[in-house]
């Protein structure tokens, strides 16, 4: 529901800190076979207390990249107490639920099941074996944690996303915004608001689709 034209072209790079660049290179380059495509060696950058650092990039397909910062002399404890849940960027107390800790993750797309299983084979033969392989609604994914504790997913579509799923996603988000704008949002209130939006908009969508033919 936006009039803004869509000029973006996917992920340039996503970047994280690492305290173990050797394991990070082993995982992404030597286990998965993601080429190293760029690096920046920066000394004396920024304010006086900014550590010297290496910023290095791996190709994750389509020219998109995952990048890491390695800060010389940085104590891993700056990311939080060692042994806590989470990754090296964000650590969480023992009481923080696992679903919350795992919610932030990177998912990389592959074309088909063969490619997914090829990465499964590579990971299972490494120090970072696949922890889960799951068929969701329309995608199948493998998961592991990289050497830094980042949740890492590789996924393939089991079928293309249909136009009605895009409509459904927009109705969900509009219903969600309405419900979280009120006190005490619940899942039940979301489904009720969405039912109203389906009645208001879905039949019209069918007509619009029909006139396109």
């Amino acid at each position, binding site marked *: 529901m936006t009039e803004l034209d869509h000029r973006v072209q996917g992920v340039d790079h996503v970047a994280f800190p690492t305290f173990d660049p050797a394991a990070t290179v082993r995982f992404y380059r030597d286990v998965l076979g993601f080429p190293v495509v760029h690096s920046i060696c920066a000394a004396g950058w920024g304010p006086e207390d900014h550590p010297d650092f290496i910023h290095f990039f791996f190709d994750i397909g389509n020219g998109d990249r995952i990048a890491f910062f390695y800060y010389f002399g940085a104590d891993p404890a700056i990311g939080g107490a060692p042994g806590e849940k989470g990754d090296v960027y964000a650590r969480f107390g023992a009481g923080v639920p696992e679903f919350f800790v795992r919610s932030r993750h990177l998912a990389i797309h592959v074309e088909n099941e063969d490619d997914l299983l090829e990465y499964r084979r590579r990971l299972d033969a490494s120090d970072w074996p696949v922890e889960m392989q*799951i*068929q*969701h*609604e*329309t995608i199948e994914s493998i998961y592991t944690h990289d050497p830094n504790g980042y949740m890492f997913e590789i996924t393939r579509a089991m*079928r293309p996303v*249909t*136009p*009605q*799923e895009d*409509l*459904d996603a927009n*109705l969900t988000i509009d*219903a969600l915004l309405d419900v979280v704008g009120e006190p005490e949002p619940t899942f*039940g209130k979301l*489904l*009720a608001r*969405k*039912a*109203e*939006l*389906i*009645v208001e*908009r*879905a*039949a*019209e*969508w*069918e007509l619009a689709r029909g006139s396109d033919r």
Partner: protein
Amino acid sequence: MTTLYVLDVPENTPMAKVAAEDPAVTVGRIGPYFEISAAGPIVIDRRATGCRHAVWYSAVGGVARDSRITQHDKNALRVEPA
């Protein structure tokens, strides 16, 4: 009156099919959604649908305000008049 909506995608079509086996239940369409309605409760057996769990637990698109979900577990989905 009890009404729920299920998006018509291949994974969800068994939901509508199983619901329609109950003579008290009507399955119609509104846009790309199945509109599943009845005067009383609507009960859909999960095993009869063959839906995987990820599909089963995310298949409900909407539930009318005069209806409410009273059961949605690995066995069945049950929607009743509120």
